[in-house]
């Protein structure tokens, strides 16, 4: 049986194909049309790996654009898919923390990757990649540069949870002559605290998989580990957990 999972996220669309023990994956920008992005990535993945559409038994869509993906036979939310994907990436995992561009979620899972409970922040930019994007811009930096900037300094305290206010707070800090490095570290700590608060409301897991775009930022990871008092496992393909989970679910039925 061969299954494809497509995760149409707000910024990137991810596709994973599972054929026995072979796993193939692709990441592309979503652009303005998730439906088109889904079709394109599917065609490209099949083409690149030498499969024809007839060989594919099941396509499962997830992510915010899943509704638009008319080529999928099944649509499953990103929460269920992330849980499934994370359990595969770290056998024995009991929790997933996913911090993406637009939202963050904490999912408790059982050994099979079934969701036991979850919490989600999708209303407010605090504790998401968006918070880092906006505040990095206020420092004249790109998000990708943030990790290297936060290496040494002791973090300065960022008091504002609200992204918009945090932005003006940063400008104030710069005016006081506080070093960029300390501010960047402070921003990472602020994100980590927000996410940690969400985790603690649910009681923390012991084997935690950290996924989503923000998981690529080692500094956030470090502070989050500090806040939670436990190590986090960041899979190499941390952005693919959703699509991987979707493909795995496709194999199940």
């Amino acid at each position, binding site marked *: 049986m061969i299954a494809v999972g497509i995760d149409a996220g707000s910024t990137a669309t991810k596709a994973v194909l599972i054929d026995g023990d072979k796993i193939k994956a692709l990441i592309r920008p979503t652009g303005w049309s998730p439906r088109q992005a889904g079709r394109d990535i599917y065609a490209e993945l099949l083409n690149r790996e030498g499969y024809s559409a007839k060989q594919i038994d099941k396509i499962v869509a997830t992510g915010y654009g899943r509704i638009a993906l008319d080529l999928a036979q099944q649509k499953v*939310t990103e*929460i269920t898919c992330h849980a499934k994907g994370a359990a595969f990436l770290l056998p024995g995992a009991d929790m997933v923390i996913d911090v993406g561009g637009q939202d963050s979620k904490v999912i408790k899972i059982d050994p099979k990757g079934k*969701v036991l409970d*979850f919490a*989600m922040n*999708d209303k407010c930019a605090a504790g998401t990649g968006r918070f880092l994007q906006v505040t990095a811009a206020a420092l004249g930096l790109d998000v990708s540069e943030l990790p290297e900037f936060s290496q040494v300094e002791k973090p300065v305290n960022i008091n504002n949870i609200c992204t918009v206010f945090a932005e003006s707070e940063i400008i104030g800090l710069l005016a006081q002559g506080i070093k960029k490095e300390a501010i960047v570290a402070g921003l990472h700590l602020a994100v980590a605290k927000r996410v940690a608060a969400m985790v603690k409301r649910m009681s923390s897991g012991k084997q935690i998989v950290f996924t989503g775009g923000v998981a690529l930022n080692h500094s956030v990871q470090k502070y989050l580990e500090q806040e939670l008092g436990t190590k986090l496992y960041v899979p190499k393909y941390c952005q693919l957990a959703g699509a991987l989970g979707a493909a795995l679910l496709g194999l199940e039925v």
Partner: protein
Amino acid sequence: MADYRQMWTSLGMDLENHDKLCEVLPEVYTNVYLSQDNRPEGMDYFNFVVAEIHGVRPAELIEHQKKGGKVFGTFCIFVPDEIIFAAGGIATGLCGGSQFWVPGGEKVLPANTCPLIKASVGARLDKTCPFFRIADIYVGETTCDGKKKAWEILAEDVPVYVMDLPQMKRAKDIAAWEDEIKLFLAKVEETTGNKVTPEALGEKIKLINAKRKALARLHGARKNATLPISGKDVLLATQVSFYDDPTRFIEQTNSLCDEIEGRVAKGEGVFPADTPRIMITGSPMAIPNWKLHHIVETSGAAVVVEEMCTGSRYYENLVDETQTTLDGQIRALAERYMKINCACFSPNTNRITDIIRLAKEYKVDGVLDTNLKFCSLYATESYNVEKALKEAGIPVMHLETDYSEQDAEQLRTRIEAFLEMLR
């Protein structure tokens, strides 16, 4: 809708703005309600009531006023309708459930006020709801802070009478509510110019009890494995019960019940057999707020019970009908009303007991614990609600939302994920 423009004009309404509301409602109603499959025929009555929402019932109220009768607008299920009807008045619910009225409320209220209060104040000040224009007097209560202050603002525009609701449930609090009902009775007599006799009050106690029984019967039909009616339809009937003529409502609802009980007997449901059964609990859903029910029921689940003021809190517990003196009747009213478990009370552990009891009675698979944005009472209480439900092994998810549509897709994702978790 028949032409009621002249009536609206004489009510001093803002017709231009009101037209905009009249334009959107039918479309929303078609989407949310008329698109459902296999609806009971008895829902035709409620379709009619909604189609004519700003026409038929307002015209009846005006007719009543022409004959010298008074109309009392209420906002909370603690206000004893029995007294109003016993004095020959008519009670009508006024809670606003549409985003349409929210900006009007925001002109005078802080933005971080719950949408129910904002919509209610906006509906009055913007002159876009006939019910808010018709009511001779509003009856407020000291429940949450937002409402307490809103009465003061509304009182500049319309007569408002406020009942002082205790916030605890000791014997002395029940006695205090009894006193408040007495004061209210005097106010109602003064406003209507009619005396409340024990005979009249006894009769109206029976009438409102009959309404509660009809609602309990309608809601209770969803205890069956076969669901003969959607949660959306039951919510709608409940919302209508707040302002419809009680006698007609009882008749129509009972005949709807005859029909759906017949469906149960034949095993004819409106959802597939294995549909997950959901309870919604939390702050009230005033008409036309159908948002959460609609999302749940278009995501593959059914709402089978509502522990809310537009649900079990409204119809559970009857008033003792055996009292023959005014004092005895008022005592009976106070005792019944003080059984309502609103989050404005401390402690409010009986609400949690109710939720767990209802979850068992209605065999729910999961609970959506919700509150309107900025309703700090229900938002704060959700901590204990969730804890108790988790201890009882009942899956629960907390949701906070308002009347706007902007979070609909995010809510849908959460609700779908919750349902996937239940499978």
